[in-house]
């Protein structure tokens, strides 16, 4: 049946559908070092991100709970994969690259991590959907900046 959906699949690639339906990281971490919430008032998307750090301060594990569209859930899930083992600066740099990619649709200096996130680049045609893709990242960055014990709230607006 897949072939009859070719016209729908250009933006909603299999990865997005799959990750949207069956995210691998969609859970609250049993123990965590930081957490933050994000919401997109425009569409009601909501996400909370939990982080556990490795001894060297890099991200050891990311979990999330999200209510929202396939794009935002898939983006959260792919993000959790791609930031593992990264430092705060590293993560911020990756987000900068990601934001450029989903804003423009192109990825001029695409490293493997960005490549992994590339299925989301199609949203550049929909500025209002770009916010769905970046929302989990905003929450993640807020968590990275947070003082332990606090729950930061951020908005993709």
């Amino acid at each position: 049946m897949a072939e009859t959906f070719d016209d729908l699949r250009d933006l909603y690639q299999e990865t997005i559908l799959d990750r949207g339906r069956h995210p691998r990281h969609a859970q609250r971490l049993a123990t965590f070092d930081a957490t933050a919430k994000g919401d997109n008032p425009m569409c009601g998307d909501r996400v909370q991100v939990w982080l556990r750090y490795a001894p060297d301060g890099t991200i050891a594990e990311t979990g999330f709970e999200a209510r929202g569209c396939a794009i935002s859930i898939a983006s959260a899930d792919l993000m959790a994969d791609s930031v593992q083992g990264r430092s705060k600066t590293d993560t911020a740099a990756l987000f900068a690259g990601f934001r450029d990619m989903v804003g423009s649709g192109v990825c001029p200096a695409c490293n493997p991590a960005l490549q992994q996130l590339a299925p989301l680049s199609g949203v550049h045609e929909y500025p209002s959907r770009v916010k769905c893709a970046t929302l989990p990242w905003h929450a993640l960055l807020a968590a990275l900046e947070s003082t332990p014990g606090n729950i930061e709230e951020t908005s993709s607006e």
Partner: protein
Amino acid sequence: MTVPFDVARIREDFPILRQTIRGKPLVYLDSGASAQKPRAVIDAMVQAMETQYANVHRGLHWMSERTTDAYEAARDAVAGLMNARDRSEIVFTNSVTGSLNLVAHSYGRGILKPGQAVIVSAMEHHSNIVPWQMLRDQHGVELRIAPIDDNGELDMQAFEALFHDGKVGLVSITHMSNVLGTVTPAGQIVRIAHAHGAKVMFDGAQAIVHRAVDVQALDCDFYVWTGHKLYGPTGIGVLWARREILDAMPPFLGGGDMISSVTFEKSTWAQVPHKFEAGTPAILEGIGLKAAVDWVRAIGFDAIAAHEAALTDHAIARLSRIEGLTIHGRAQDRGGVVSFTLDKAHAHDVATLLDRQGIAVRAGHHCAEPLMQRLGLDSTARATFGIYTTLEEIDVLADTLTRVREFFQ
């Protein structure tokens, strides 16, 4: 199924409907957010800019006098459309949001007293909520919410009960919900409110597009709407109110044209409607709005209402058959607005996938978050119909939705 006028011919009036989106013909089902503009409106604005334009009211030269005539003719057209008693009851604003804020400021702060209450319904647009919240917080007026039932109809018993203590000064309520399509029982609302000494304002942003509105027959006190949803330009809205109410209301915005005389010590105000129209008005937009009103009236609201009823019935019938699809809003009396959700797909994903097939629907909270909370939803997808919408377009929507549902299976 027959439609009461020749939609194909109507569509020829709208150049934009010939556009394609990614190679697919545009299926524009977002008229409830803003309607497309017929040739008559485009031409009227172009003709003004090309042949007859100047500032109005302060004229003395030919171009100014003639532009004033053209602009003031919009007031006559609108007065005729609404069956206002007098043209001076028509105040032009920049949008229905502007009209609602004008009333919330001028009537709300000038006439309503702290301790009085304003009723809105559970299915209002933010434009008919936030100005009253500001009034509540700044002026000490209470805000009461008229609840709706599960069909999306006003609970009239609960509505009447809100008047129990005699504090209600104003009911500001939608005449037609932009999410559920519900047309509220205007006559009954007015009777109840007036029996309790309260005034009634209808937010007619949606209603005026779908049926004839006669403010004298409705017997209401205020009626507001906006040009861009009635096939007119953006940047112009309408406030109708009874003359004696307008006379009693203090001005809202200050500036040119709304004064009778100005000294630094004291200024006096012009007569209505000018008292409420500070500054250079939306001249070109008034001229465009007149063309829109004339064009709509030439088609006639009987035909429009029948056409939209046919479209809505067809849409509900077709969409109801799609597995996993829920239609929100099942009011008896309703207009051409159909909100729905799919069980397996978020409304935003639905809207994006429809868009890739050339179908424009809206998804989100539709500026009615409290209603979403009442429905227990974050968002819905919403298809809204205009004069130019065809039954075939609704079939395309239904067929594509069926495929989207399968895609997300």
